[in-house]
């Protein structure tokens, strides 16, 4: 038996409460040996990030102790955490967009020479990036980099401070499968160097692949400390979710005997992005009645621009878009919505007026039409009555129509949006990452609602960075990469196979598969 190693970090009864009474961390205790990769697994809102923010000095625990190498420490700020040898790779990159890579890496260091800081440090960083296989142009500006490259900067930034313990906050969420593999090589290299990695994730496969041990959090409590090689993916899932559910949400597919009418037709559409660069190139596809088309791709490859182009918020440069046979190229957002188009944006703030009440948000689409409006005036009683009905049907909590939506949880906000957009039985639904930030239960409710709408004959374009979500729901899958559709797959009766998954993963990473392109249209 191996000699028991030194304990790198230990949590003893750590508690963190957020007002009014959310117990984000509920007496958390566990320890991590030096040189291990520990996965911290949990759903959204399980308290993973809170705990890591406490370790990195961003939050102070209400109670409990943290021990580093056996010594109790007070981590009052990230500065203190860095002194203690703790590094963090943040989920939402904390980088200065207009500065160069190297300037970002040395930002905030106290030991930087006053004159010519960049030149003197460059060599050290180059050496480090070679050692870990992190290839990056140090002179490039952050805004020019892809998400994966930006993460590379975050990693170098953390490593430059020579940490013994590194916190990885959901580092794979913006990466393609290939990039995930590269990232795992970095983690393994660190393990070889006897560094400790805390890897936050909610992806089970990653836990199995990379970690030595796994700590599972649920609703702020530790519900399991397991050795990875002694557990199974099903056990992890069950512990994380807390109830026995079938591992993947199974879609009860009504067999589509024949395809319905075409609801949305994109024909050779080009559009510019925010920086006046081409964001969409020659996009052509169709969505039929009762069909869910999944648009897979890593975030930032033109998905947002595509959705905005369809709903009329972005100018079409070239090409044609028609809905139900009506040409809506460059029509106004209101004209397009009147064709029966619902839009579920990824950013919920975009679809809601957060300071307004639930009731007032329900009438956002039809505020100027009957029954809400009679001429110039509107009828509060009808608005309230409608809101009560919707709240009941969609089970929105708390059931207070007068409550501002900013006080609702993410899942309830999403239900407010869906309720409003679905109530008119839209013919076409454009949805971007509809379950982002929701827990498993919340996501399942949303899935159900989509399937219901499909049954009613709506055509759905599901844009998502989460391949699993698309594989669960979609009948047809398109892959977008750098503004182009680089692959398509048509569903088969037996459902999606493991090969489909691998292919899609490759295409999301930009690999064109000849056979898939030929099959298209």
């Amino acid at each position, binding site marked *: 038996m191996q000699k028991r190693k030194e304990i790198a970090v230990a949590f003893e009864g750590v508690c963190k409460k957020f007002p*009014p009474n959310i117990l984000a961390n509920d007496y958390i205790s566990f320890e991590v040996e030096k040189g291990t990769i520990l996965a911290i697994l949990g759903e959204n809102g399980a308290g993973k990030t809170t705990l890591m923010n406490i370790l990195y000095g961003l939050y102070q625990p209400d109670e409990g102790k943290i021990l580093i190498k056996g010594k109790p420490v007070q981590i009052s700020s990230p500065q203190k955490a860095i002194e203690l040898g703790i590094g963090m790779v943040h989920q939402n990159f904390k980088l200065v967009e207009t500065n160069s890579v190297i300037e970002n890496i040395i930002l905030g260091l106290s030991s930087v020479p006053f004159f010519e800081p960049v030149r003197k440090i460059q060599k050290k960083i180059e050496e480090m990036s070679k050692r870990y296989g992190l290839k990056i142009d140090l002179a490039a500006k952050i805004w020019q980099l892809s998400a994966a490259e930006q993460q590379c900067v975050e990693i170098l930034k953390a490593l430059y401070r020579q940490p013994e313990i590194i916190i990885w906050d959901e580092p794979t969420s913006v990466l393609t499968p290939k990039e995930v593999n590269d990232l795992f090589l970095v983690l393994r290299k660190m393990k070889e160097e006897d560094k400790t990695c805390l890897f936050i994730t909610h992806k089970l496969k990653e836990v199995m692949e990379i970690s030595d041990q796994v700590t599972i959090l649920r609703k702020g409590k530790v519900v399991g400390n397991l050795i990875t090689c002694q557990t199974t993916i099903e056990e992890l899932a069950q512990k994380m979710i807390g109830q026995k559910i079938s591992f993947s949400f199974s879609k009860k597919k009504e067999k589509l005997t024949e395809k319905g009418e075409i609801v949305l037709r994109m024909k050779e559409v080009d559009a510019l992005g925010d920086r006046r660069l081409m964001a969409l190139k020659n996009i052509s596809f169709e969505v039929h009645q009762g069909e869910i088309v999944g648009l897979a791709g890593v975030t930032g490859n033109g998905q947002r621009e595509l959705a905005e182009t369809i709903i009329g918020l972005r100018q079409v440069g070239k090409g044609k878009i028609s809905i139900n046979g009506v040409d809506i190229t460059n029509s106004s957002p209101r*004209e397009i*919505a009147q064709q029966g188009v619902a839009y579920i944006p990824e950013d919920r703030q975009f679809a809601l007026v957060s300071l307004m009440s639930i009731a007032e948000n329900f009438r956002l689409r039809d*505020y100027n039409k009957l029954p809400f409006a009679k001429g110039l005036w509107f009828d*509060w009683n009808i608005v309230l009555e409608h809101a009560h009905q919707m709240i009941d049907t969609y089970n929105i909590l708390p059931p207070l129509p007068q409550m501002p939506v900013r006080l609702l949880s993410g899942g309830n906000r999403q239900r407010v949006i869906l309720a409003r957009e679905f109530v008119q039985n839209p013919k076409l639904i454009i949805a971007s990452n509809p379950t982002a930030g929701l827990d498993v239960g919340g996501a399942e409710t949303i899935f159900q609602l989509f399937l219901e709408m499909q049954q009613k004959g709506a055509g759905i374009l599901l844009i998502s960075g989460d391949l699993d979500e698309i594989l669960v729901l979609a009948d047809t899958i398109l892959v977008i990469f750098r503004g182009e559709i680089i692959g398509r797959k048509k569903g088969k009766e037996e459902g999606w196979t493991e090969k489909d998954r691998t292919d899609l993963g490759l295409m999301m990473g930009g690999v064109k598969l000849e056979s898939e392109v030929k099959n298209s249209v």
Partner: protein
Amino acid sequence: MFKIKLNIEPRLLPSAGAILSVSFFALAIALLAASLIFLTYDIKPVEAYRLFFKGAFGSWYAISETIKRTIPLLLTGIGLAFSFKASVWNIGAEGQILLGAIFGSWIALFSGIPAPFLLIAMFAFGFLGGAVWALVAAVLRSKLAVNEIITSLMLNYVAANIVLYLIHGPWKGQGARGFAYTDTFPESAWLGTIGSTRIPYATLIIGIIIALICYLLISRTTLGYEIRVVGNSIRTARLVGINDFKIALLAMFVSGGLAGLAGVGEVSGIHHLLRHPSHISLGYGYTAIIVAWLARNNPLAVILTAFFFGALVSGGDALRVSLGIPFQLVYVLNGLILFSLIASERLTSYKLSFQRKNEKERR
């Protein structure tokens, strides 16, 4: 060992009671702070506040002076509340008041419109004058994305200089001798006052009616709904097809126009001529920003806050005259009151409570 812990919890929907009690608390703190300054002048604070209160409310004359000051603040404040509701930051009410005064004076002095229609024409043109002046900033914002806070503010100085040019130059009165102001308006261009007071009743009534109309417009009409959506989130407004350009222009037009009405009210109801800009408006355009802000952009609440500020101005005047103190001291008092009221605003959205924590109870 005992440990006292301060809990800060967000209030979901601040109640009227909470807002009132926090505001009174803030007022008390301001008066306490100002007391120290009065003491350095060997003035008993209690005496100073008694005089202040007497000057604002102590007699019919005092109350009428307060209401006289309230009217321009009311008209301008409603307009600003309206534009702030749409997140259009009109800081240029001072200039819009002056433009209203210029247009009103122009009609009064040179148009020759017969008596019954003269006042109506003055108000109509005064409204237009303020509104068009405000539109300059609105169009620059909507078409070229120029920050309206800067442009509307800068236009205040332009407006003041236009007034100065007119009263020193082309419009300088025959009977004014060395003084820089215009001739007195014909009496048909004077607003009637209530009894022997100096309160022009027409503008007072107009102000209260407009407050009511604006309140209903914002809370009960589809146009008001559009304004609130744009004010909360322009992106969402665009998503559902609300024309935010139209709303921004409307907000500026209305707020500039109402400031213009206030300007006409001052020259026609009080001065009966066009004179130095700082006499026409005692900084009403700036004070009205705070009037609207304290009313949380609710036009009905503006009636209260405008009255409150009217009292601050007239009470301060009385204090200055009866104690012979430097007038800056009055500004200090007003400033302290404002400062603590605005600072306390955050407290209305959070609840503070103290919790005694016993060491033994901790797990």
